[in-house]
């Protein structure tokens, strides 16, 4: 019963915080320096991780599918599979997971430390709106950077798949790239952007909002010193990944099935 109550309390707080943040977006111009700082942290700061993980993810997908496709002589289809799986699912999901584990946890720890060291109380006493001051810049930065990093992850993953296809599966690099681009381009539906790409970017935008909202909420509710900050950080990563997976299913259903 206490678990259910806690879950409802946390969920209520999260949605209320998200609503407050979305209705205070007028703070964006004033917080542009802070937003730029968080974009740098959430973008350039994790770029090397996204590049590395994205590259190897593309290589793994190419290798796994390539081995099976080779058995039936269809290895020239590898480009299609890697491109679609990276653009639709792997790119957004991997990027969001990396951001949850790195930036999301840091956000929860930062704000959680402020909560337990009375800095949040100090903001309140100084009549500084903590949603405008702390949440909005992080939310905007992650909502922007998650799609940007996803594009980079998709690109490097497809290139990594091409490397495996040409070096280990005897598929020409040009053939691989042609099939990858062919797989994406015919589905263009929105201002020239392929559906698989914009669907993935829309997902990653939502993931960015989810990570920021959950991490900020966990930090703001932290109590009890260093232990509380630890709980908040762990909770931010755990809840973000769960929320990403669940929302991913419903967005996929809405965009491809409905």
């Amino acid at each position, binding site marked *: 019963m206490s678990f259910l109550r806690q879950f409802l309390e946390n969920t209520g707080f999260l949605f209320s915080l998200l609503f407050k943040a979305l209705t205070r977006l007028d703070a964006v111009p004033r917080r542009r320096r802070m937003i730029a700082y968080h974009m740098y942290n959430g973008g350039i700061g994790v770029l090397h991780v996204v590049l590395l993980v994205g590259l190897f993810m593309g290589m793994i997908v190419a290798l796994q599918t390539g081995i099976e496709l080779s058995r039936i002589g269809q290895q020239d289809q590898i480009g299609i599979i890697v491109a679609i799986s990276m653009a639709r699912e792997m790119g957004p999901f991997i990027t969001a997971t990396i951001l949850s584990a790195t930036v999301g946890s840091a956000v929860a720890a930062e704000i959680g430390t*402020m909560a337990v060291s009375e800095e949040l109380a100090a903001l309140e006493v100084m009549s500084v709106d903590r949603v405008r001051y702390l949440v909005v810049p992080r939310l905007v930065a992650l909502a922007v950077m998650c799609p940007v990093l996803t594009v980079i992850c998709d690109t490097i993953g497809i290139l990594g798949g091409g490397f495996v296809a040409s070096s280990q599966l005897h598929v020409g690099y040009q053939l691989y790239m042609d099939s990858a681009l062919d797989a994406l381009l015919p589905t263009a539906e929105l201002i020239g952007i392929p559906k698989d790409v914009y669907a993935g970017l829309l997902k990653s935008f939502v993931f960015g909002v989810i990570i920021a909202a959950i991490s900020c909420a966990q930090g703001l509710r932290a109590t009890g010193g260093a232990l509380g900050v630890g709980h908040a950080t762990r909770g931010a990563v755990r809840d973000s990944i769960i929320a990403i997976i669940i929302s991913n299913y419903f967005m996929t259903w809405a965009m491809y099935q409905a």
Partner: protein
Amino acid sequence: MQDPTVIRFEDVHKAYGGVSVLDGLSLEVRRGRTLGIMGPSGTGKSVTLRHIIGLTRADAGRVLVEDRDVATLTRKQLRELRRRMGYVFQEGALINWLSIAENVALPLRENTSLSEEEISERVQAKLELVHIGDTGSKMPSEISGGMRKRVGLARALITDPELILYDEPNAGLDPEIARSINRQIRELSEELDVTAIVVEHRIDCIRAVADEVIFLDEGRALVHAASPEEFFQSEHPRLLRFFGEAETKENL
């Protein structure tokens, strides 16, 4: 004629998780006076301050600031009230990614339309007032505990408040810095005529800054003395036990 009452607690009760912290606390502070609050740890001294500034709400009873019940104020009214108050946190509560000058400037940047030039001038003036005029560009992690307290004090003073709440201004400081902080608190009270409440364990602080003193025990004002001298001369058995049986009144 007596000065008007600025703060009044009327039979205030507050409990956390079923544990009573304030149990019928009543007190009042008049304009321009400094009230010292002493008492054992966990007896509700900081909670008392948090009620005044609206960070905590009473379970029962009323907390009045200038005859207005803090619990019934709208967010806007509370914001306006807070702009006229300063709160000096125990550990400074400085925002760790802002420089010292940016920390002190924060209330002005967020709540006023002053130009950057005016803000810089005011910040420098307040930093000099607390004798740390050359630290503006440093980060909170680069300064000592005593300096952090002074920065907290400068930040609390930046809006020229009429009421200042000090939460253990001497905690963790060496005697020399503590004396300097106490001198500054006293100067502020005398020169700027601010009303203040000082929560503190240290006798020398209360002796130096307070006009009157209460001893808080089990959430109630057990002893209320009109001056520090009267307070430290008290024969109340609980006070004698708190300060130590071996201590003589002369030592206190």
